[in-house]
């Protein structure tokens, strides 16, 4: 399966997302922000980083890039799209998912191995999980506090669009401990933690078994690939 990873000026975890796709058995395809060409990919990842230096608002300028109009169209046609951290912020800015992100409640950048609960195992990127499963995924951001108006939060909760919730500790003050959400159809998923950094034993978060051995993030990528194979 060919999975595109878009590089914006200031993208940082783009090569990591490509590596994760490869480790999951997919074929990563580098896409460029300034192009309108999706190069025939079957799924798209908007990676983490500080696109455009987070100027204006995190993800705001990138959401207006030429390629984003193609991403929005493709998402509308049902193509799986995953926004990680800065990519999550872009999805919100592009209105592909509801809500917005503000500065972490404690006002600092934070990096930690974060425990999450999978709240919806039916999205394009989560079918390999079971609902309620606890996973550990690295988190690293400064503007990760997910906010929305009460009505939107109610709708997200009611319609199963909360995909992941922080457990143990809420690291950034997100409403309802929300770590990740999906669109109504479930093909577009955004989250603050970085699944691509929990895909290779030796370079992931610590587990009870061994240092850096966590690979819970791999399931994001295998989920979308396996679904494509079944089709």
């Amino acid at each position, binding site marked *: 399966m060919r999975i595109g990873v878009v590089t914006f000026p200031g993208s940082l975890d783009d090569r*990591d997302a490509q*590596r994760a796709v490869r480790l999951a058995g997919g074929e990563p395809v580098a896409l460029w922000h300034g192009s309108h060409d999706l190069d025939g990919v079957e799924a798209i990842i908007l990676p983490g980083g500080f696109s455009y*230096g987070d*100027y204006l608002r995190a993800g705001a300028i990138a959401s207006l890039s030429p390629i984003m109009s193609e991403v929005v169209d493709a998402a509308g046609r049902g193509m799986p799209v995953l926004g990680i951290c800065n990519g999550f912020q872009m999805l919100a800015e592009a209105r592909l998912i509801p809500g917005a992100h503000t500065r972490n409640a404690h006002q600092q950048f934070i990096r930690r191995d974060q425990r999450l609960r999978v709240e919806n195992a039916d999205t394009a990127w989560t079918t390999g999980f079971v609902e309620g499963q606890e996973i550990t995924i690295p988190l690293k951001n400064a503007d990760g506090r997910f906010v929305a108006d009460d009505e939107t939060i109610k709708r997200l909760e009611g319609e199963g669009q909360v995909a992941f919730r922080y457990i143990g*500790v809420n690291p950034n003050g997100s409403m309802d401990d929300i770590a990740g959400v999906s669109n109504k159809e479930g093909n577009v998923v955004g989250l603050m933690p970085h699944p691509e950094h929990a895909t290779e034993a030796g370079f992931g978060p610590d587990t009870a078994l061994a240092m850096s051995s966590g690979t819970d993030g791999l399931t994001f990528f295998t989920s979308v690939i396996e679904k494509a194979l079944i089709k």
Partner: protein
Amino acid sequence: MSTELTQAPGTAVPDTVANAAATPDREQPFAALGLKEDEYLKIREILGRRPTSGELAMYSVMWSEHCSYKSSKIYLRQFGEKVSPAMKKNLMVGMGENAGVVDVGGGWAVTFKGESHNHPSYIEPFQGAATGVGGIVRDIISMGARPVAVMDQLRFGDIDAPDTRRVVDGVVAGISFYANCLGLPNIGGETVFDKVYQGNPLVNVTSVGVLRHEDLHLANAKGAGNKVVLFGARTGGDGIGGASILASDTFSAGGPTKRPSVQVGDPFAEKVLIECCLELFRDELVEGIQDLGAAGISCATSELASNGDGGMFIELEKVLLRDPTLTAEEILMSESQERMMAVVRPEKLDAFLAVVGKWEVETSVLGEVTDTGRLIINWHGEEIVNVEPRTVAVDGPVYERPVAYPTWIDALQADTAAGLPRPESGDDVRGQFLQLLGSANLADPSWITNQYDTYVLGNTALSFPDDGGMIRVDEESGLGFAIATDANGRFCQLDPAQGARLALAEAYRNVAATGATPVAVTDCLNFGSPENPEVMWQFSQTVEALSDACLEMEIPVTGGNVSFYNQTGTQPIHPTPVIGVLGVIDDVAKRIPSGWQDEGDNIYLLGTTRLELDGSAWAGVIHDHLGGRPPSVSLDGERELAALISAGGDQSLIGSAHDLSDGGLAQALAECIMRFGVGARVWLDEILERDEVDIATALFSESTGRVIVSVPREDDVKFRGLCEGRGYPVARIGVTDKENPGLEVQGVFTVALDELRQTHRATLPARFGATISE
């Protein structure tokens, strides 16, 4: 810097070469620019006339201590002279370039260097620290390497002093902001609080880059007719005189604010610049790239020309400006960040412009390389600079500063810790152990390190709190490097030569403890004013001892940085030579972490414990005492120890290894437990008997050449065999315990894991604000 300082009074147009020749007696503000009178006269002698105001600006920044190393040069030569053939074997680029380059095998090379940004970080902590990251990373890029990691070595004032929080908050946020935004993992460093750094914190940043052998580039301007191109951020009025006014002078109370001399950083611009430069190198579109750091365009043009064919012609009005009112002199001196200067063949210029255009990096062609032997700079058609570039960049003044033995050191060394009361009862030992564990310099620094990204790039094999950082270089083979940095200013104050050896030994040992083999050294030498003969004595002792020690350990110094004038008023900081050691490991899968993960592993202490409490954390924290002589060190012994760990690591016999340094054995045991929450039962009888020491000494002494390792039961016989064959002192002192995850020192005291962690973690958040943790 106001314009009337640099511009000839009463003239609207800049001071031209013709004008300078015609008005030899015009008074010039050399002193305000940081030049001494004899230096000014020397410039007049070199030029055969008075300098133009532009030339004066260039000489003043390039002849500053920060850029010219004029006080340190005669000593630093030793690093190049004391070198054996074995040390040169893997060295691709040594001292004198932007950064040293080491062959790590498999066609790969690693380049690394540390640099200081001390004074800017005191005046404006956030921007000062941020641009410190930016500057050292550009040094790495200019070698043709991809930056892959940073580390920071931070020294602040007393943790409880009112101003410390301002500096800590700003410095940490600045480093976090800039390096995280560049996408560089921060894989280690040091944090020290000591009142000697109160008015003069130290912010040192080390960066490491990786390249293929064929991608190595040196910054020089060769080939007459080649274009000289400035690209990156626009030039503004920030950082004017940063090197000369700020970095090369002592802070004094009541003087004018130096805040405008601090640069302002934009990591996004630098991130784009990294990718752009790597693409330019990959497509072979540049002859060389020089970063613009201290002294800006003055430095880049004169250094590029000096290292090349010797001539360059520049039209200065072509520099793209952020502020159109800047004068020619200000443009020459500006230290605006995120700028690079490239030398490009004319036939490749279009392709070059296409790449910088793709990355939306602003670019202007300023001029070209010439064979005239002169650096000529025009401003709107009029010649304002005409100099031989080497006289600016290379042949600056060299001082043999007065050196004086500090007589106070005799009394300091005589005041040993031997007479301080040592605890005997289990309760007293326990109390002092916990007091140390929560003390400012032994407490958990994760309030700081949790603000740093360690994951980005996906190759971080080890980072905090392990003994060294480790990065995978080759994803196929697993080839990687490890790096650790160390300095102990207290030891250096007692004996600078021994302090330097100890810093090298500790960094070497830390790298060895990760399973890597040490191969090269960088240094960042932080000292007080070179105009103080006692400081020069400390400096000369340090460089001599360090260069001798490197020769003895057969690892070359590949580059470094000297930072003088680290004092407020007349009180210099402790000498603080930060030593970084780089190691190589053939497969990062063999890395050794610093803590215990498994039940029932045997814990061994390698090395001998002596009564060495002078200058120790114990003496400082418990007794507020600094005196005596630092611990002894056997460099041969350190090499044997490293070889032993390396052999054990190769055969996968070692589950963990942790070096003993600040706080001694007790602190190391606690850190091994807290790393993964696996406890230990420890007995000290054998150590007490064999080494003839008391309990307090066994637990708190800072004797060198010691590491604790854990060995899985099934490998025990093999490990013991390995040790016996080598004759290195070894004693089994305990066993790991998952069921009771605390520290039990049998017959002395017990502390549960929760209490260890609470004590260790509370210190920084109590001063600097709560942090996120479960």
